[in-house]
């Protein structure tokens, strides 16, 4: 069993979950995910890892409460024991010295982009972080991200913090701030990933997105997470979760994510439209 160290709602509907899983914490790298189950009958929920403490043997993830299973996770409290924390799964995000890297996080992705920002910074990149959300009250971790960012920019749909607007505004934001990106990295819900990939294609630089399709085992066994990338079938859990967003068949992925909407209980942590 794995101990819950803390579970805290950090902004409405988004929870920070910290778990003790020393062996996973020891291996985890930026961009990887874990699969958790909150009790013995619960489904397996993939969560992108947002931080870890190797000396304490703990790791954290941010998840959105959207349905029955994430609802169970959202009721966990410190000291609870859960039966499954398995990982780290998926390939780590590629971290090299790229130059200027723009990291865009929305929803739970503001959390999962954090270790990527930190690692890119440590590699000597100039990291620009963009937090995206419907409104100021949905943004978090400003202070946590700050030390590792060259610039931190916010984008809210209602203009309550930073720039007003959506990803369409990004081109203008870059021009205004004289940002010439060498690479984009985007974490967040599928809508954000899809729209950002389309919007940023004009820059003609790698646009790495962390995909979040429906998964069961997370180890390449079931194939439910299959996506079409550059015309080829890929399993997000083992070939990804990072792919170049310019090559992803977004329409197919968005359709595949809706498979169990009717069954409602099957809602992974990032299954809903969080306003992106």
């Amino acid at each position, binding site marked *: 069993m794995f101990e819950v160290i803390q579970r805290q709602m950090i902004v409405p509907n988004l929870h920070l979950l910290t778990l003790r899983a020393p062996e996973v914490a020891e291996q985890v790298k930026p961009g990887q995910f874990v699969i958790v189950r909150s009790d013995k009958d619960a*489904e397996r929920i993939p969560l992108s890892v947002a931080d870890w403490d190797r000396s304490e043997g703990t790791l954290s993830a941010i998840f959105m409460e959207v349905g029955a299973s994430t609802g169970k996770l959202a009721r966990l409290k410190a000291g609870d024991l859960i039966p*499954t924390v398995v990982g780290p799964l998926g390939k780590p995000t590629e971290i090299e010295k790229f130059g200027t890297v723009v990291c865009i996080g929305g929803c739970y992705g503001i959390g999962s982009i954090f270790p990527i920002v930190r690692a890119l910074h440590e590699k000597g990149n100039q990291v620009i972080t963009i937090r995206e959300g419907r409104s100021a009250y949905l943004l978090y971790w400003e202070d946590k991200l700050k030390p590792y960012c060259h610039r931190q920019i916010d984008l809210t749909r209602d203009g309550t913090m930073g720039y007003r607007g959506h990803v369409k505004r990004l081109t203008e934001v870059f021009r205004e701030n004289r940002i010439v990106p060498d690479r984009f990295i985007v974490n967040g819900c599928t809508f954000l990933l899809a729209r950002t990939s389309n919007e940023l294609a004009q820059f003609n630089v790698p646009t790495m997105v962390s995909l979040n399709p429906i998964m069961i085992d997370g180890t*390449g066994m*079931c194939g*439910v997470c*299959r996506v079409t990338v550059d015309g080829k079938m890929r399993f997000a859990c083992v070939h990804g979760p990072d792919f170049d967003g310019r090559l992803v068949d977004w329409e197919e992925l968005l359709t*595949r994510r809706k498979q169990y909407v009717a*069954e409602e209980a099957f809602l992974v942590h990032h299954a809903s439209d969080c306003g992106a």
Partner: protein
Amino acid sequence: MAEKKKLDLNRRDMPKQPPHIRRRNFNEVALGYTPELAVVEAKRCLQCKKPLCVKGCPVEIDIPGFIKCIADEDFAAAIRVLKKKNVLPAICGRVCPQEEQCEKTCVLVKKKASSAIGRLERFSADWEAAQGPVEIPEIRPPTGKKVAVVGSGPAGITVAGDLVMLGHEVTMFEALHEAGGVLTYGIPEFRLPKAVVRREIDYLQKLGLKLVANYVVGKTKTLDQLLEFYDAVFIGTGAGLPWFMEIPGENLNGVYSANEYLTRMNLMGGFKYPRSSTPIKRHRRVAVAGGGNVAMDSARTALRLGAEEVYIVYRRSRTELPARLEEVENAEEEGVVFHFLTLPIRLIGDDKGWLKEIECLRMELGEPDKSGRRRPVKIEGSNFIMPIDAFVVAVGNGPNPLIPNTTPDLEVTSGGNIVADPKTGKTSIDKVWAGGDIVTGAATVILAMGAGRLAARSMHECLTGEKLLTTGTEKGLGEGEEESER
């Protein structure tokens, strides 16, 4: 001297749930022999001096020995004899293809019908379980050697069981949250109740096996890291990577790999939905591509979920079906419709991305291919459309690449299978053995167990220098079949 006994040629049938009842429930289809039936059937065995059946068994069970015990109504002795060679009698009694192995070589086959070895094996194991706590056999004193077994399917369980009995400290790692591998996620409840699998694994834990679930070797720790802690490692990670058919439309909603379809049902308890939390779709017309046991399992699962029509779409003819005959007959009785010599070539969706029909081609049989089966040849222009709302791809599985990908020194074939000595299971890395589907490609439970047995012997020898006595002829393991045959 006793009077020469007249041959009893009537193999006793095992009571089953009637087809019209069982096609709508997930309870076990075959109900098992009663003690009376078992004794009558056991008495048919001729007790050959040189038993051919044993030669047909990959783990070399003393078959006449345990059957004699049943005939003498000493069921406790029967299970003891079985467990000397087979740690999983309740499972093997249910899912081994006996008709291709022990029962095929039974001398009674020539007369009429072989001794029902599998059914008697199952009877013995179930009888024991019904008696309450199982007997714990004598275990050798600790050797002080630590062994890691990666994967808790049939191969891993066999290695673990054998090595625990020999006094080694064995830890078995499982990536999923439940042990058993394909026995747990793949084979459905109605063919192999999960309680039976759990019972066998509990037994191994009672013998001293340490089970670590939720642990992905290749991710949580690499193989190299395991080697720092363990004196020997066995890899039995199976054939877990589903193959698709590479035809248009495979990513439509309503298309599943058999692994997904069965895992949702079995591991995640989908058949209990909405009481379980992993949802399943109710489909009306389901087509399953493939002709192996996995295809039969998928089709019969679909029926039980309430589908109105379930089709097996297979590109060869009935004779070439790789599934066990018994499972084919069960499927037919339950109402699965077989479309032989039919090849799906395109999956067609509606405007919302859901599967609505499949396009197929008729085939005819040509010359035999390398598997010895007649090659299916397309009949051009024979295209036709079947209305379908779910399509399950059961055309086989490849080896899971997680360990080879993170272990550069491990030699693998071009297909990604681990290269292992067929006599010992030794791999290209010192102190590392492998066996089961990860080596042979998708095959059967008992072949994986046979490989586990050979590897356990070799591992024990390397760990202690002691050569174990072997009985019968040691065999290498066959090449993988094209269709999955678990």
